[in-house]
């Protein structure tokens, strides 16, 4: 297998950063996230995963869509905003790669393609590094994700202790690997298999959930939720967005920004009617969307088992505890 010594990884990064914007997992200002290589902060290849998911490289928290100029009744200018540039996402973990695959299904299929996402996605090269250790909150192998590799990544790298095994999986990945040719040696070495300590039995959940819309389990699970957006904004697969306008005199722009189904005014309609008035309906909607609705529509779970929501929920609402409780409870008998 082709390998690059860990000591020479900075040279590899320098080469990659020449033509395109290179994003690496870093701790910037106390927060671990994907930041441009070279920005002040400490690079973190040894950490299990970042706190902020790579979601905002393809689906930014706030994204300008189009700007316009108005002259009383006329629309004098309307131009679409496109700031997509070639990017390389280095050091993505398999669970986040799976989340990118879920986002591709949402934004690129089902009769409409979202151009803002597509432009960025086409110019992105993903370099996935398999995990060699897991955090207590990781449960990706229970959700059908292999912690050591992911087939959708352009380049797959394995942590072999003092060097990284590297293999291209797409021709975009091959161009990247060719650029790093002179840093590579041939070395035998096989990736160490790793498995999560937190195990969950996620089989048969969509079928069971489809009969449990009125089940009392929702009230019991959602009672301690405080209705904030932490879980949805840290989740790599949450893709709900809102669109708003900002005006400044006779010009302005329309932007889209992340939104959370946990917020009270998320589904409030013009007349004041709200189909999900209390946190009970909202938690039900979020868990059903993650474990059943997305499955019905796209054929895969929307939860990739990264554990960020478990780690950071202020009151420890835990989707794995919910799945465990789901197993014990029969479809209709109360909790």
């Amino acid at each position: 297998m082709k390998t690059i010594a860990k000591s020479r990884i900075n040279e590899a990064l320098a080469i990659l950063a020449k033509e395109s914007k290179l994003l690496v997992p870093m701790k910037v200002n106390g927060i671990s996230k994907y930041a441009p290589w070279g920005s002040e902060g400490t690079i973190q290849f040894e950490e299990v995963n970042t706190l902020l998911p790579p979601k905002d490289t393809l689906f930014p928290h706030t994204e300008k869509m189009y700007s316009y100029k108005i002259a009383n009744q006329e629309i004098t200018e309307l131009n679409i905003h496109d700031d997509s540039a070639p990017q390389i996402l280095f050091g993505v973990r398999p669970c986040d790669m799976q989340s990118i695959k879920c986002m591709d299904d949402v934004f690129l299929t089902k009769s409409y393609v979202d151009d803002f996402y597509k432009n960025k996605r086409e110019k992105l090269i993903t370099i996935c590094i398999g995990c060699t250790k897991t955090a207590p909150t990781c449960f990706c192998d229970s959700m059908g994700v292999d912690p050591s590799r992911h087939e959708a990544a352009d380049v797959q790298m394995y942590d072999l202790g003092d060097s990284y095994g590297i293999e291209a999986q797409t021709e975009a990945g091959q161009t990247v690997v060719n650029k790093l040719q002179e840093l590579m040696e041939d070395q035998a070495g096989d990736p160490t298999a790793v498995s999560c300590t937190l195990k969950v039995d996620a089989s048969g959940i969509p079928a069971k959930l489809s009969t449990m819309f009125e089940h009392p389990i929702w009230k019991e699970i959602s009672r301690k939720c405080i209705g904030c957006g932490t879980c949805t904004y840290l989740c790599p697969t949450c893709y709900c967005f809102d669109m708003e306008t900002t005006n400044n005199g006779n010009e302005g722009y329309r932007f889209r920004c992340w939104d959370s189904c946990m917020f009270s005014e998320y589904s409030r309609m013009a007349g004041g009617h709200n189909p999900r008035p209390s946190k009970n309906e909202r938690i039900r909607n979020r868990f059903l969307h993650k474990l059943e609705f997305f499955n019905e529509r796209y054929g895969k779970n929307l939860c990739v088992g990264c554990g960020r929501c478990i780690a950071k929920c202020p009151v420890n609402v835990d989707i794995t505890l919910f799945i465990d409780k789901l197993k014990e409870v029969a479809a209709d008998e109360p909790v």
Partner: protein
Amino acid sequence: MSDTTVKMRDIAKDLLDKGTVHYIIGWEKGRFSNQSPPAFITSAAHADRLIWDEYCLASTAKYLLDDKFPAGKIGIFARGCDARAINRLIQDGQINRENIYIVGICCSGMKDPATGNTADKCQHCTHPNPIVYDILIGDPVPETDKPERFKAIEELEKLSPDEKHAYWSKQFEKCIRCYACRNVCPACNCRECFVDQYRVGWQGKQNNLAENQLFGLTRAYHIADRCIECGECARACPMDLPLMELNRKLIKDINQLFGPYEASLDTETTPPLAKYHLKDLEEFM
């Protein structure tokens, strides 16, 4: 800690069996050993889920707002900060005292699940013993004034305007506007928050430094004279913003300008910004 757990469970069973309370809010173990999230015990059989250990960090008080017109009394285990939060909700007219049955617990401080040493909110706690309760568990813990809780603020005040701006910009750039700080805060109990009134246009929905800072400063100002320094906002923030450094700055100024004051030690004293004094300091002549 463990005999407190036993007492908690006995009291809960007793209250639920006799029907004095409809349900009781306490803490139970989460999945991991350093997690003790809030628990809602509805029947005596479940009372054994209750636990008292050094990770019962989340406040139980604000859940009273989810049940403003309860079928029966609501039981609630309250530490020092929860008791002040209950006073805060009563004084803001959100709940009334007869609907709740408070079991006070003298609290000697909780641990930060990430680092294991004393949690920030407990380091600066000035009232660990509950100031309002129906029964009390444990004997009172010594209370000190802890003036050093304003030290970090004094450090920041010495900086130049540009350094201050740089510091707060770095902090507010991290904010992801998840509103966890607003949703845990007992003083944040408006019927409709200015953040949700998007038709009025108080604040844009974009996530950039300008809107984040507007939200952070506005929320800090809205609770300036009602903040009980429970530290839940800083604990709940996933991005670890130093929110208490904002709230404590306002409390420090209010103490200096209008005389020493601590929020919601009782439910009668009007908060300083809701009243005036003819002889107030004159600065705008």
